[in-house]
C-alpha cells in the first residue's frame, strides 16, 4: 500500500485538529442557565430584605438549591450544552466542572461581602443590592468562564 506523503499527512492532521476544535466550540452552558441562576439569586436577595419568615427563606433557598443541583448535574462543566453532542471529559478538561463550582462559591462569598458592605453603608436593602450586583456578574461572567474552559481545551489540543 502507499502511505500519504508528508504534506498529505500534515493536511490530514490539520483536519483532525479542525474537527476536534468544532467539538471544543460546543463546550458551554446554555444562556438560560446563567439568566435563571441570576434571577434566583435576585429573588433570594429580595426575599431576604422583605423580612419574610425564616422558614420561608430557608425553604426558598433549599428549593433553589435542589433545582440547581438537578439542572447542573447535566450541565456543569459545559460538556453537554445541547442535545447535539456531548464533549468527552478529557477534551473539556477534568477540572472544567470544578472551575464552574469555584465560580459559584466565589459568587456566594461576593454576595455576603457586598451585602455586609452595603449594610455598613446604610443601604436600605443590602441583600437585594448585593444580589443584583452578583446577578450581573453571573450573566456577564458565566459565559466568560466557559470561554476560558474552551480556550484551555484548545490549548491542550494543540500541545
Amino acid at each position: 500500500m502507499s502511505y500519504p506523503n508528508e504534506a498529505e499527512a500534515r493536511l490530514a492532521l490539520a483536519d483532525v485538529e479542525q474537527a476536534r476544535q468544532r467539538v471544543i466550540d460546543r463546550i458551554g452552558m446554555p444562556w438560560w442557565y446563567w439568566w435563571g441562576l441570576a434571577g434566583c439569586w435576585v429573588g433570594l436577595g429580595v426575599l431576604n430584605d422583605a423580612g419574610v419568615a425564616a422558614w420561608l427563606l430557608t425553604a426558598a433557598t433549599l428549593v433553589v438549591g435542589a433545582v440547581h443541583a438537578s439542572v447542573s448535574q447535566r450541565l456543569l462543566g459545559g460538556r453537554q450544552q445541547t442535545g447535539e453532542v456531548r464533549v468527552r471529559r478529557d477534551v473539556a478538561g477534568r477540572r472544567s466542572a470544578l472551575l464552574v463550582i469555584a465560580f459559584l462559591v466565589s459568587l456566594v462569598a461576593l454576595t455576603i461581602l457586598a451585602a455586609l458592605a452595603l449594610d455598613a453603608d446604610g443601604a436600605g436593602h443590602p441583600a437585594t443590592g448585593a444580589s443584583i450586583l452578583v446577578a450581573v456578574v453571573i450573566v456577564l461572567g458565566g459565559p466568560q468562564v466557559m470561554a476560558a474552559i474552551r480556550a484551555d481545551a484548545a490549548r491542550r489540543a494543540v500541545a
Partner: protein
Amino acid sequence: MSGPRFDELIHPATRLSIMSLLAAADWADFAFVRDHLRLSDSALSKQLATLEEAGYVAIERPLSERRRRVRARLTPLGRERFQGHVAALRALIAGGPLTTA
C-alpha cells in the same frame, strides 16, 4: 495510547473527519456531524455504515422529546484505531516506522 498504525479505512478525508469529530465526543447527533462536515444525509449514512461494519462506530437511536434521534459514538476498537492512525500520521511527518491496520 496506541502505537502508530496506518488505517486505510479511516484515512479517506470524510471518514477521518467523522472519526475526528466522534473522537472528541462521548457521542454526537447525526445532524451535528452532517452539518459540520456539510454532507448529505445519504453520504453520511453510507460512511457511518462502513465504519459501523468495521466495528469502529456504534449507532444508537434514543427516543428523545418524542422523536427519534440518531447518535453515533466511537467504539473502543474505533478509538484505538483512530489513535493509532493519528500516531501514524505524526510518525510519517517525523519519518518514523509504520505498520498497517
